[in-house]
């Protein structure tokens, strides 16, 4: 699915953002990409959707050499990849519906079908009722969920997220992470860049660690608390104890 072969990226000043990075991500895998700020996480992610090109080495996405794709074909690559950023990157002057359906609109999907797709994508992130709102009217967590809905609307093969929870509080972060895990359960390859080691420890999965542009570690982690983030477990309603009715007392025997 995604293969990096000795990929290096050097900027004009001579500074190396990536140095001889080699790895292989099979279809359907969930991968954490971690490392300190400036380790090269964002550069690596941007190379997958051809926002950056390597100085040397090869990148294959679905068997295609990304660096060799002509400019005019880049949009077709990007339509198979959903991307989510820390700062959401929603278009403020467009409604949630318009933001989410931008790609179907580009592809010429008719309005009825767009509505259906938008509803399905927004329902997955729990925001089907905010179709006509504008991004500034939503909270940070809601905006990020809209960004995820936009990334998912075309049912992409790959979902890339660059610090998607960086601007969110712990509860919202957990909610967003749960969404990514759910998307992955449906078969989408997910690459999530984060430096939140605690989340990685709790969730587990494959972890690629970058250090000064080099792939310092590639390991499978067993999560310490996977049920807390398990999307299937999360679907079970959590009913507060005070609302659970007390068991009915057994009928009293009446004296006959």
């Amino acid at each position, binding site marked *: 699915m995604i293969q990096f072969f000795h990929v290096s990226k050097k900027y004009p000043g001579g500074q190396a953002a990536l140095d001889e990075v080699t790895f292989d991500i099979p279809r359907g895998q969930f991968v954490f990409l971690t490392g300190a700020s400036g380790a090269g996480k964002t550069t690596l992610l941007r190379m997958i959707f051809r926002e950056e090109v390597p100085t040397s080495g090869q990148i294959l996405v679905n068997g295609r050499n990304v660096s060799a794709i002509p400019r*005019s074909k880049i*949009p077709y690559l990007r*339509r198979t990849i959903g991307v989510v950023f820390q700062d959401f*990157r929603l*278009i403020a002057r467009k409604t949630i519906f318009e933001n989410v359906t931008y*790609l179907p609109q*580009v592809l*010429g999907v008719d309005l009825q079908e767009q509505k259906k797709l938008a509803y399905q994508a927004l329902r997955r992130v729990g925001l089907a009722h905010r179709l006509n709102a504008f991004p500034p009217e939503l909270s940070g967590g809601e905006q990020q969920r809209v960004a995820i809905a936009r990334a998912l609307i075309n049912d992409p093969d790959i979902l890339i997220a660059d610090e998607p929870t960086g601007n969110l509080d712990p509860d919202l972060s957990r909610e967003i992470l749960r969404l990514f895990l759910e998307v992955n359960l449906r078969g989408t390859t997910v690459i999530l860049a984060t430096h939140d080691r605690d989340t990685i420890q709790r969730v587990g999965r494959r972890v690629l660690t970058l250090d000064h542009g080099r792939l310092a570690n590639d390991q499978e982690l067993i999560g310490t608390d996977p049920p807390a983030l398990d999307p299937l477990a999360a679907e079970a309603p959590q009913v507060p104890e005070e609302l659970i009715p007390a068991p009915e007392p057994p009928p009293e025997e009446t004296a006959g």
Partner: protein
Amino acid sequence: MSLLKALRYFFREAGVNLLRGWKVSLLAVLTIAVSLFIGGAFLLVSDNLESSVERWRGEMRVVIYLKPETPEADLRRLAAEAARAPGVRSVEPVTAAAARKRFQEVFPSLSNLVAGWQEEPLPASLEIGLDPRTAGNAPGREAWLASWRTRPEVSLIDDDREWLGQLATAVAVVRTVGVALVAGLLGAAIFTIASVIRLTAYLHAEEIGIMRLVGATELYIRAPFYVEGLLQGVIGGLLASGALWAGYQLLHARGGGSLFSSVLALDFLGAQQVAFLILLGGAAGLFGAVVSLRREAL
């Protein structure tokens, strides 16, 4: 995506951009409107001047004035001779008495000037109408006129072609000056539109980045800006045409019968010329947009 859907999207986005940045859009529209207004005014004047020249060319004639002592019989003979020359449409022999009578009819207040003379004060003449198809230049015309000048009966030859030729040169000068001026002004208008479009694209840089991210093609991203330039140009052309029409009506209302209305602005521009002005505006706007978004400008 179907062409119709794409066009609808491009025009809607362009319309929204125009309205949102209406102040800078207005600047671009007015710049192009002023350029086209000046161009249109030159076109109007030169066209009317040219059609006046054409009209006068149709009435072009050569008048051969004879010496006072020429007998009337010679006048008739010379008239018959002139009528046989190629490119001559008509010959009217005007006797000295007829010339005086005509003068008195045309200028009744000056009729005393030509009355009471022992001899006729005005000379007899031959008024020779020339064929407008050859613009008075039938083969051998100069030699033919030269032969008339040497005749003992002829005192003076008045040739319309001389001043009509000068007027035609003046029309060409007006047209050339107009074209040069409009080229310069349109250049300025294109520069303004290009700047406005570049500014709009700059303001939307983040949005354009998002469009690229989700897989929009370059055409899909750029086309609304091209349409925006096109619309600015077309609106400028419409404004210029409207202002020309209003100006034409105003001047006619104030100066009916003047030199202006009879020679320089007798007729308004034709539908094709108005369409040309509007299309020229659209083309200038589109060109400005394309120039502003060329290569990596977006």
